[in-house]
């Protein structure tokens, strides 16, 4: 396959070509070509079971694709290991809130910062050697409005705060590409607004690809929208264009009202 022209690499941070995944004969992701433009917020939407989370798991190599290619900054990452991808700047969040429950809020963020120190295998050093990271960790916590909870154990935070903590931890990785799996799922109204604002703020310096059910959030912050149905891309473009697409209206927007009411994943 010919290498992508240089301008396209600059323009698109992530590209999939013919990405396919099957589970025992059931095609979860089918021949998906997707290009994520650098610096944008790109939303992936689609009815339940459309293959959005599977697609995410393929991108972050938590699953191995059966066919196709994934390019990140022009490089083939189809066979890279998940932890390596994280180190190269693709950091994901999870559908269920992903915090370290029995670590404090500060420690949660610090784990992400710690990897850049050379001491992650140093089993003979005291924990106080990690204190150099505290200032940066507190900065990140302040960004998501968690400064007052630094010494609370993550398990004791309310749900919306946990998602905020997860976001702060993800930001601590200084990712180039942030993959958010339903960041507002199951949240109360004011939390949705807070997290939406946070995502917009975080996206100022990076690219965001997000799976999202809440169409209000998508309409408000997404630059580009891709609609998946039964593992296939049925439309891609600006919100206004996609919303007018007859196939999308039939497949998905018809149920947009239900999604607005907060349908579960």
């Amino acid at each position, binding site marked *: 396959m010919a290498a992508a022209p240089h301008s396209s690499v600059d323009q698109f941070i992530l590209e999939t070509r013919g990405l396919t995944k099957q589970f025992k004969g059931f095609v979860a992701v089918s021949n998906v070509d997707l290009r994520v433009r650098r610096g944008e917020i790109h939303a992936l939407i689609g009815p339940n079971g459309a293959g959005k989370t599977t697609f995410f798991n393929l991108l972050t190599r938590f699953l191995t694709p059966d066919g196709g290619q994934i390019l990140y900054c022009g490089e083939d990452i189809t066979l890279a290991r998940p932890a390596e991808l*994280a*180190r190269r700047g693709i*950091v994901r969040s999870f559908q269920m809130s*992903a915090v*370290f429950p029995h670590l404090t809020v500060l420690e949660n963020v*610090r*784990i992400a910062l710690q990897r850049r120190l050379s001491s992650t295998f140093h089993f003979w*050093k005291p*924990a106080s050697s990690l204190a150099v990271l505290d200032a940066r960790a507190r900065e990140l916590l302040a960004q998501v409005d968690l400064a007052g909870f630094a010494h609370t154990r993550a398990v004791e935070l309310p749900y919306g705060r946990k998602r905020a903590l997860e976001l702060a*931890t993800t930001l601590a990785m200084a990712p180039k590409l942030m993959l958010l799996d339903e960041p507002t799922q199951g949240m109360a109204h004011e939390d949705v607004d807070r997290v939406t604002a946070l995502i917009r703020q975080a996206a100022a310096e990076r690219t965001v690809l997000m799976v999202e059910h809440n169409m209000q959030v998508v309409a408000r912050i997404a630059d580009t929208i891709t609609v998946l149905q039964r593992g296939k891309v049925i439309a891609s473009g600006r919100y206004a264009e996609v919303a007018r697409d007859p196939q999308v209206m039939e497949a998905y927007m018809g149920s947009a009202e239900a999604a607005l009411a907060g349908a579960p994943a």
Partner: protein
Amino acid sequence: MRAAAIGYLLLGLLALALPWVGLYPVFLMKLLCFAMFACAYNLLLGFGRMLSFGHAAFFGFAAYVTSWLITAHRVGPAAAVLSGMLVAALLGTIFGGLAIRRRGIYFAMITLALGQLVYFVCLEAPFTGGENGLQGVPRGTLLGLLPLRSDRVMYYLVLAIFVAVFLFIRRVVHSPYGHVLRAIRENEARAISLGYDINRYKLLAFILSAALAGLAGSLNSLVLGFATLSDVQQSTSGEVILMTLLGGTGTFFGPVVGAALVVSLQEYLSDLVGGWVTAIIGVIFVACVLSFRRGIIGELAALRRR
């Protein structure tokens, strides 16, 4: 925090005084060696959340290595114990390297199978003395300076090493590495998504645990003057799990309490009831798992938090 420090200080003083109040030093040393073994095991189970069914392999094989070096090659006690520990670490690298590729029950089964393999080697290999084991291992003179024949001298040496191991494990858990290990224990997928190659961190925990288990086994054989098949057999792997669970996994002092309890019960009950001691310990184990799953120290800590 301060209460804990005072508690440890009192325990330390008690440990120093014990051989002078009529307790048999060899019994105390055996207890300390098993406490060390349980602490090493707890590093893996409690702090790394990996359940190994084959830890007797490290404990027992290190005992053989130490005893063999002393009896067949006249190596000094310090070098022999260190060699036992190193061989256990090497064995741990192989076991761990294979087992961490799987999780949960499959991990446990791999360690069980490898543990049985080591038992078989100890039974059949020419240098292990087969059914008899290696007997009559002299304690020798530590670094050519300190004769270890006296039980009291040996006791203080074992106590010092035990304290060092105990403090070392605390340090590991509270180190930068320990924080990463804790994160992996809490949420593996998230740790991966933060860029950690989790298997390398788990492997290090396995190696450290195996090395310390080996140190305990080597010392135990030096104390008793023999290495036998019972050190390396499956029931010893079971005992260390029991000690750790009984005392409290994931607590620092729990394994020590668990080991003290099990070793004492075995020592005193076997005179009274003979073979029934295994059944009694079994009943205690079931009761522990059913009614106080956090173990003795775990439950006490939970009570204090309330």
